[in-house]
């Protein structure tokens, strides 16, 4: 026999299940062995069972996702559902099935509009399953906003502003799911109960304005601007009521090594790594992980520039207190164990608000890498001319780092008067420096070699992660393989 009829196939399957739990008698086991030996089709079937059993056990995400679809995870399967519960559960699973087919990027259900795209500001969409032009009416489906802001008005009257980068799934006029990213919702009294679902929490609104930011891995933060919302953290029975001005943070804040003062703006989720044009290139910025950016100035009275939207760099032999050096740190722990083949260090030039460009010729900048790893753990708000990595305030070359603790990685130029654009540093010295990292943190020191020709010359500035409209310092890394 080689063709398995359904009954035989089922018999083989049952034996497989039993053999996996060690429940076969010796006789049954011998029987299974013979069947598998004689029938290639039975063997192929058994291999499929083994493979599937392995997938379900070794890939936690698969079943966890199923548990999430089922609604409440462990709670849902705690007891055999009673009849009335089962009725509800069937309804829920029908709803889930609809959600599932959407999730797989299929199509919006036709003929049922749920929301309208009312405004798109500087918006660039990516991979959305729904029409994205202003005025488009949309049904269920997924929006993916890569850049800018987009406002959606739900039929229930709720207005949601998506802030890029975000992925939002529209379920119906009272429900949406924020897969990742940031949104602000304005809920009129008529739409009380509007719900934003995130991977780890459910936010139910009672007529307010509130913001939510969520990461793919479940971390989230909720900030209430007006009114009242309820936050239901999914793993556990915790339901939190939040009033205006209150917020809850599950992990997003803790991702930062320097939590900001309490009255600061709520942290929002930022993409942790962007897959660039492929070919193994990945981009991280100082906003990722333990990244940081700041600068120091040769004046005792000013320090702690960690929150500035730019860092400043200047060399002057004419005014002793106005030298400045930039410090940029990246968290490259995620590249540990990967072979770095190529790399680029990228800075965005920020229009400077200090000094006159006329007084500074075309300028050359030097970028140094900090080789003394014991000094990598600097705090972006703790730097001063007295205290900074690879820095000696008594060194005659005030604008440069201490040579014994650093390595020169290369130079870049900025022509006179240029106050826009990017500067890129690339080369074997940079790759070598990154490869030698052992603690997952790398520090770059940025110095200007060009002196000014008269006092009050231009101070160059580069965007930091606190910049609202310019790209923070980036490290682009190409790893081998994949």
């Amino acid at each position, binding site marked *: 026999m080689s063709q398995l009829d359904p009954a035989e196939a089922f018999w083989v399957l049952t034996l497989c299940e039993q053999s996996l739990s060690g429940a076969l008698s010796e006789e049954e086991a011998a029987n299974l062995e013979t069947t598998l030996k004689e029938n290639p089709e039975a063997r192929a079937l058994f291999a499929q069972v083994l493979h599937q059993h392995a997938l379900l056990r070794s890939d936690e995400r698969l079943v966890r996702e199923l548990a999430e*679809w089922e609604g409440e995870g462990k709670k849902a399967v705690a007891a055999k559902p009673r009849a009335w519960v089962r009725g509800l559960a069937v309804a829920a699973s029908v709803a889930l099935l609809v959600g599932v087919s959407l999730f797989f990027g299929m199509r919006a259900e036709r003929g049922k509009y749920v929301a309208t795209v009312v405004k798109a500001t500087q918006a660039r969409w990516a991979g959305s399953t729904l029409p994205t032009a202003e005025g488009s009416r949309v049904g269920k489906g997924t929006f993916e906003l890569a850049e800018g802001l987009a406002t959606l008005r739900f039929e229930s009257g709720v207005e949601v502003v998506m802030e890029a980068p975000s992925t939002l799934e529209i379920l119906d006029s009272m429900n949406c799911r924020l897969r990742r990213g940031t949104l602000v919702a304005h809920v009129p009294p008529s739409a009380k109960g509007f719900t934003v679902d995130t991977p780890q929490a459910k936010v139910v609104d009672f007529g307010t304005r509130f913001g939510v930011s969520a990461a793919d891995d479940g971390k989230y933060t909720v900030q209430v601007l007006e009114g009242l919302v309820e936050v239901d953290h999914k793993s556990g029975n915790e339901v939190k009521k939040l009033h205006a001005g209150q917020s809850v943070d599950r992990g997003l804040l803790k991702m930062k090594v320097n939590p900001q003062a309490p009255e600061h703006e709520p942290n929002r989720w930022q993409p942790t790594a962007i897959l660039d044009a492929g070919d193994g290139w990945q981009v991280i910025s100082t906003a990722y992980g333990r990244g940081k950016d700041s600068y120091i100035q040769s004046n005792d009275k000013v320090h702690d520039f960690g929150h500035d939207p730019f860092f400043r760099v200047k060399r002057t032999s004419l005014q002793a207190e106005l030298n400045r050096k930039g410090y940029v740190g990246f968290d490259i722990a995620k590249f540990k164990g990967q072979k770095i083949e190529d790399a680029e260090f990228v800075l965005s030039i920020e229009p400077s608000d200090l000094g006159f460009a006329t007084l500074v010729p075309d300028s050359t900048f030097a970028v140094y890498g900090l080789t003394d790893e014991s000094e990598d753990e600097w705090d972006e708000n703790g730097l001063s001319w007295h205290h900074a990595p690879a820095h000696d305030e008594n060194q005659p070359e005030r604008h440069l780092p201490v040579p014994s603790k650093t390595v020169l990685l290369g130079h870049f130029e900025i022509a006179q008067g240029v106050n826009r654009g990017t500067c890129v540093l690339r080369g074997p010295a940079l790759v070598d420096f990154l490869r030698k990292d052992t603690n997952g943190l790398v520090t770059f020191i940025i110095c200007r070699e060009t002196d000014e020709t008269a006092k009050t010359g231009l101070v160059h500035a580069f965007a930091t992660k606190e910049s609202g409209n310019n790209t923070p310092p980036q490290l682009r890394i190409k790893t081998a393989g994949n």
Partner: protein
Amino acid sequence: MEADRTTEFLDLLTRHDRALALYVYGLVPSSADAEDILQQTKMLLWREFSQFEPGTHFLAWARKIAFHQILSWRRKRQRGHLPLSEEMLESLSHEIEKLADQGDRREALRECLGKLPHEHRQLVLLRYYEDLEIDQVADRVKSTAGAVYRALSRVRQSLLTCVERELSQSQAS
């Protein structure tokens, strides 16, 4: 030089980690044992890495070493392994390799899990999410072990059929 070799090893291992785990889990029913065998295998891979010829198939090499680890674990243990001969295990291992290398079964399975009816999902969750043994599942759903085996086999059958269909569709399109 030495550092480069380490990086190369870690790079290869990271890239094939999932596939290797899947292979071992496929041939070893107990998750705890599978983890132990994986650990030993990885140590062995590193120790023997000088024998590995760059440019050849790392995963094939790693699977071969893992298979020998599985065999010696079976010889030491009386229980907890598949009640089949070594020859049968080897021929199944080749079938599993073929399955792993052909199409995205994980993605297909994921999609099929989403299509399961409610009762079937509950069963999958009890078995794989809560990680229960068959008699514990039976206890939970107030049924017998035999009934649970039959029910699981039915879930398995519909998942297998669905996965094959998904794969043939994705190849067709």
